[in-house]
């Protein structure tokens, strides 16, 4: 746990970059610091491992004032990754990742094992990459090594200052996803600085919005999007915040499980009955394994009353369905693109597990919108 208590940072030139910041970073969570450029994100973060001194107030790290630790000892138990990566160009990947373990005096064999483990964790083949030098790696690979290095001695706490900042958008998304996967396993207490609101919403368990060195709002992404505290936050999260909120919800949590469906082998009568029973316009067609094969509607049944195979619209589950792990935002965008009012939800195999309607999504968004307006 990291606790900021009325923290103030005044630089020697008199400028107050952080002005009475109080907040708690909970164990095992990613807390994102976000705000306009120059709002004091980096400054706040660097006071945690005492790369900057605290002018007033205090920061508790695991319950202890961080000034009670010897500075080096404090820093060795806090992982540190920055936008410029800062890999040591004269050291191999192994040596880079081994820096903190070596400082802590680990045995050489343990270090090597740890390095291999970390390389695997960040998705780099140890045998290929261990002895490379940073200049032999791509930007994305360097960034992974930077993260691996920050994790070197398995620190309970990590500080990450725009760690994926200098990378192309596609690689950044990949790294974000991978890092979230990693975090699921390692559950570190993380302060993550960014100025990209989408990254903040995706990565953060909680988001702290800073402005001119002060905390404006500190909430979970969903609350932040649903109930922005004031105009500044509302502008900052963007006019499409309802859409962004949908990005936080998984289809799995929103879908209707008993959705009308018929087997490929069924007769057109069966299909018609299923549709009428559910009082809907169409039903999904699945094969004997439950895999989605297409859909059939009343109109199709009317035109081809004899054969279900002729009456149905065939389609690959990848084309017409959405995964249950997709976000509501992705489902919405798929529906808009395909012109569906309802879309089937499938699992990894393509088996039909439920469906989700455009109206359900709309209602969800409306609800948030209203609440958000009332709150401000």
């Amino acid at each position, binding site marked *: 746990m990291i606790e900021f208590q009325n923290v103030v940072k005044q630089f020697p030139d008199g400028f107050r970059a952080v002005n009475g910041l109080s907040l708690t970073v909970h164990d095992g969570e990613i807390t994102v610091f976000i705000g306009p450029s120059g709002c004091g994100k980096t400054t706040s973060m660097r006071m945690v*491992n005492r*790369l900057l001194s605290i002018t007033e107030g205090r920061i508790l790290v695991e319950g202890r004032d961080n000034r009670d630790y010897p*500075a*080096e*000892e*404090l*820093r*060795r138990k806090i992982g*540190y990754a*920055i936008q*410029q*990566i*800062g*890999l*040591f*160009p*004269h*050291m*191999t990947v192994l040596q880079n990742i081994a*820096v*903190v373990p070596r*400082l802590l005096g680990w045995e*050489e*064999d343990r270090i090597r094992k740890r390095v291999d483990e970390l390389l695997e964790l960040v998705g780099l083949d140890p045998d290929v990459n261990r002895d490379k*030098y*940073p*200049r032999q790696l791509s930007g994305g690979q360097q960034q992974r090594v930077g993260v691996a*290095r920050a994790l*070197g001695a398995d620190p309970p706490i990590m*500080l990450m200052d725009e760690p994926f900042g200098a990378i192309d958008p596609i690689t950044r998304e990949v790294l974000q996803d991978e890092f979230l996967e990693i975090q699921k396993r390692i559950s570190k207490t993380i302060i993550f600085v960014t100025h990209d609101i989408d990254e903040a919403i995706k990565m953060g368990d909680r988001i702290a919005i800073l402005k001119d060195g002060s905390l404006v709002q500190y909430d979970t992404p969903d609350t932040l999007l649903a109930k922005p505290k004031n105009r500044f936050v509302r502008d900052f999260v963007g006019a499409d915040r309802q859409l962004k909120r949908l990005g936080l919800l998984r289809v799995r949590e929103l879908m209707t499980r008993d959705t009308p469906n018929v087997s490929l082998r069924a007769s057109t009568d069966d299909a018609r009955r299923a549709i009428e029973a559910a009082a809907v316009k169409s039903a999904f067609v699945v094969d004997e394994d439950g895999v989605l094969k297409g859909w059939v509607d009343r109109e199709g049944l009317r035109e081809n009353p004899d054969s279900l195979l002729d009456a149905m619209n065939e389609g690959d589950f990848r084309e017409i369905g959405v995964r249950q792990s997709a976000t509501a935002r992705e489902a919405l965008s798929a529906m808009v693109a395909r012109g569906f009012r309802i879309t089937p939800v499938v699992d990894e195999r393509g088996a039909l597990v439920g469906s989700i309607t455009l109206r359900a999504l709309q209602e969800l968004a409306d609800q948030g919108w209203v609440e958000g307006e009332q709150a401000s």
Partner: protein
Amino acid sequence: MSVIPNRIAMLGSSVAALGFFFLPIVALKPNRLAAGVPFNLLQLQGDYRYILLFALALVPFMVAFRKDVTTRGWLLVALGNLLLLLTLLLPAMAATHLLANATQYLGENAFVRNPRVLPTGGLALGLAGGYVTLFAGLRDLERSGVQAWIRAIGAWAGVAVIAVLLATGAFNVYSVMVEFHTNGAALQQKFVEHLMFVLVSLVVGFIVGVGLGLWASRDERVSNVILYAVGIIQTIPSLALFGVLLVPLARLGDAHFLPVALFFAVSAVLAIAVGLGYRALAGRLPSRLQTASLIVAALVAAVPLTLFTGVFVSFVYRAARIGFGGGAMSGLDNGILALVLAGLGLWVLRRWVFVRDGVVRSLVRWAYLLAYAATGVLFVVLMVRAAATDQFLGAVPSLSALTVRDLGVSGIGVAPALVALTLYSLLPLVRNTYAGLKNVDNAIIDSGRGMGMTPAQIFFQIELPLAFPVIMAGVRNAGVALVGIGTVATVIGAGGLGDFVIQGIVNTSIDLILLGALPAIALAMVLDALLRFAEGLLTSPGIRHAQNS
């Protein structure tokens, strides 16, 4: 990728060919002093070989247009080496003929005594052209990624063959070699002297220069003062610097040791006091005064520092000369030296030999320790041996009678030369250390700090290795420059290879000048190559390429 022609090779080829065509390649001299009769390459009596040499000079020009960089590189390296070798060898062969018929070529009236063949412009340009061609080839090879050690073989093959031929006497007809044979013993002594003062002043200059560079890189305000000061030194002509040092060093030599030591101690303490005072007051002083007080501190510190450096350099030089000068090295010396070298070798190789096995690892560690100890022992042995001779402090009855001159400091001779050379070595060393350290990316240092490295760890494990190639470039610059400037030291009686040059100028004997100059050039080249080699070994492969230009 389109390959551009190798312009450097074209240049080398042109230089050699034009030299061969327009300039005399050798001159036949009836004796040491008289002017000679010049001969062009194509005039040389003999056979087609001389025409072939001329033709050979033209080949690199055509090779330069080849598209395949690797092949082109190897061809150019081969051609360059061949040019170097043949430019020396073929005229030497012809010279035998010239000498045999000296009277015929020189005419009846010449006073023929000890006739000799003087290499002249054509030969010099031939060598230059060969060297440039070789260099051009090496660049191609580097570009196509040929490994450094293979390139090194290519670079030194011709020189090695020439050295062997030199030893077998193939070039004895050249006048420089004639001088060499008459002055052989003296040359060896002068060469050692020269080497000694280059090395001693380089080592001391390194200690002082890297220290100053480090200080400058840590404190922006100091850096201006330091860089300016060492820059000024560089602008003083070497002769003037010797002259300036003459009087103070003579006075210093007269002084007794104890008061000088006392003065040194007092001013050192004073300097530290001023420095600490500045520290305490820093921030509270107005900024104009800050700079001023800093300069005062630097000046106060400079006096004892210069003094100490002067005495120290002279003392080390003297001790080393006397310690090593006792003739043949004993078995003990050799044993110790071998240990030192083995330790050094291990240290250099440790990057490649990753030792996992615990036993071997601890053996290696013991070997280090042994080598360190051996280094210490060697130093002590040298000092004790030097002190035991009566050349060294032996005649001094007591400590209070000890003068600074007894430590090797005097107005003329080696002391001012060493001090001047040390001062000259400072600029490249300070500048490069400063630049090297300043150029280390802040983000890299920041991550080091953020990971919990101590300032010392950051310096030794990050900043120093990263600045190392730049610092080493400064060492090379300084070393090569010192070999050259060292030849001037002869004017204050310091000895060295400059002795021959001066003699040659006085006697208008080009041969003698060359006798001094050629070993100096060779020394500079070898020193540069050795330092480059060491730099290559000790620089991490991770940064080797970025710094290579």
